[in-house]
């Protein structure tokens, strides 16, 4: 029983990571934009949704007590706006300025989460976030599986929408811009606008994931959104296969499993006072893995598929 409940808990979190990964795949996999501030966009979504849905409290602004669905939509919207602004600032410049600026906004937003206490609860975070299926919370098994079903359904819907988008004219132009900007431009496409759209869409999905995670766990605080999270999500996408939506989901589940297993192994093997130290080895392993993959198998487990318009029939050459 306990294992079943834990499995559902684990998989629900893996689903929320899959959503972040799908968002990153729109930015990096489809469009080639390197976002080093994933954690910030997830965090903005989480805090937005929490502000909208928690009941009013005297020591905090916000707390509108709105339904969770409204929180989700708000989260995606606000994250999209933040990504749009960052994109508008940097996408016309050299490609790695986006990386540096997203790295910067992650640090700036982390400071905001920590210091604007009237909005975010400061370092103590916000608890008692309304949860989906909160009425069956007493039954852990039912509660966890209901949440898993919801998160999984969301992943499936997002997957279908994103696959459809990737095959749509919009998706094809996006890849054209990624592969050869000058050629796309000479065909009358506007690379800057397309990149900006993709970056904002990816940001919106990450914000949504942050909201889903916050409402599932029921508590958020600034340390949830450290650069560590960005790093994990990148490892997931590169392992799974950037450019492939199925790969993004597979990578998220796989890397999260490796992370959770090695974490419990460390708590078994090492004495309590050495565990923080041993946990840093986990990060070393993931970092080395990321570098080795970039060297030996940059396409990941599931490489990007050639997609062309469905109106042209199936391709025979590969």
């Amino acid at each position, binding site marked *: 029983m306990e294992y079943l409940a834990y499995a559902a808990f684990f998989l629900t979190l893996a689903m929320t990571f899959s959503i972040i990964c799908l968002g990153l795949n729109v930015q990096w996999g489809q469009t080639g934009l390197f976002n080093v501030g994933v954690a910030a966009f997830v965090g903005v979504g989480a805090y937005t949704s929490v502000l909208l849905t928690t009941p009013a409290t005297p020591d905090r602004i916000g707390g509108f007590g709105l339904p969770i669905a409204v929180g989700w939509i708000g989260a995606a919207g606000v994250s999209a706006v933040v990504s749009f602004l960052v994109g508008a600032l940097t996408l016309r410049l050299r*490609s790695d*300025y986006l990386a540096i*600026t997203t790295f910067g*906004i992650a*640090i700036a937003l982390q400071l905001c989460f920590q*210091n604007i206490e009237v909005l975010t609860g400061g370092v103590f975070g916000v608890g008692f976030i309304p949860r989906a299926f909160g009425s069956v919370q007493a039954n852990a098994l039912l509660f966890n599986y209901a949440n898993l079903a919801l998160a999984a359904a969301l992943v499936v819907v997002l997957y279908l929408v994103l696959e459809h988008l990737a095959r749509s004219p919009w998706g094809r132009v996006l890849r054209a811009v990624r592969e050869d900007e000058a050629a796309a431009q000479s065909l009358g496409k506007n690379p800057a606008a397309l990149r900006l759209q993709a970056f904002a869409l990816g940001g919106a999905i990450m914000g949504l994931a942050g909201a889903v995670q916050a409402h599932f766990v029921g508590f958020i605080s600034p340390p949830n959104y450290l650069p560590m999270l960005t790093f994990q999500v990148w490892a997931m996408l590169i392992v799974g296969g950037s450019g492939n939506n199925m790969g993004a989901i597979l990578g998220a589940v796989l890397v999260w499993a490796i992370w959770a297993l090695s974490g419990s192994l460390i708590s078994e093997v090492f004495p309590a006072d050495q565990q923080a*130290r041993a946990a840093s080895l986990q*990060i070393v392993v993931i970092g080395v893995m990321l570098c080795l993959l*970039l060297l030996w198998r940059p396409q990941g487990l599931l490489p990007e598929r050639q997609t062309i318009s469905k109106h042209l029939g199936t391709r025979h050459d590969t």
Partner: protein
Amino acid sequence: MSFQAIIDGLIAGTTIGLGAIGLTLTYSILRFANFTHGDFLAWGAYLTLSVSGFLGGLVASLGVTTPLGPFSFGWGLPVSLIIGITLTILLTMALDKLLFGRLRRRGADAIIIVMASFGASMALRSLLEFIYTANPQYLTRELQIAEPLGLGMRATPDQLLTIGLTAVLVVALNLFVTRTPMGRAMRAVSENPALAGVYGIEVQRVIRVTWIIGAGLACVAGVMSGLLVQIRPYMGFDLLLPLFAAAILGGVGSIPGAVIGGLIIGLAEAFAVQIFGAEWRAGVAFIVLVLVLLVRPTGLFGRPS
């Protein structure tokens, strides 16, 4: 508002400026934004700390830690620093050989190399945390009195030394880059690597020299920061955004630009601490970065790309 903020800002700015020189050189010559550069500062500080601890154990009787003149450290520290610089250079060379060099030869996109540097940075930083734990460490336990400088400003001899040392290093490096054949070769590679290669410049040698300068200065900056504040595994990561902001503010590729950018960021941070409080210090570099990208993306001394 007190004039002390000027001194505090200049001192923090020298560390940022020295670190930013290496970053701006790798950025313009190897053509990628190196996210591991902050960790070179931290590794430089820890390597020097280890050497200095080893030296202290080896020849304790020779007074390696007896303070030199007005400073808080003995002759052990300068010696350790030189060994630390060598070790930091070896570390970056190894990283270039194992990772960046391979990706470069494969013709990987600059952005893939940036990503690899991001992964390597996480690994390097966590390795420090594993080896030395997250507890802060100190290069010296001596206390220093801040001497009055006039106008209500005070600074310790160590702090004045770091400002002086930075000035000497920057002038020497600028002479090297502008007056020697190697410096000319470096500028040529940063303009156009293929053309420089055709002209007979050994691009590999230029790359090696770039790492040597960058790693050496990173180690010096890390040790300075360790001497004046403390040594932590995250010290380099916390400096990374100020380093990038300084390099871009000064104009990518410009050595005086990186130093002036570093000083401006250091001063802006010191004044922000006085006005808004210390908890917002880390946000200053981001604001500067956004302003530069909005107003003048090529930086103060940068060429339009």
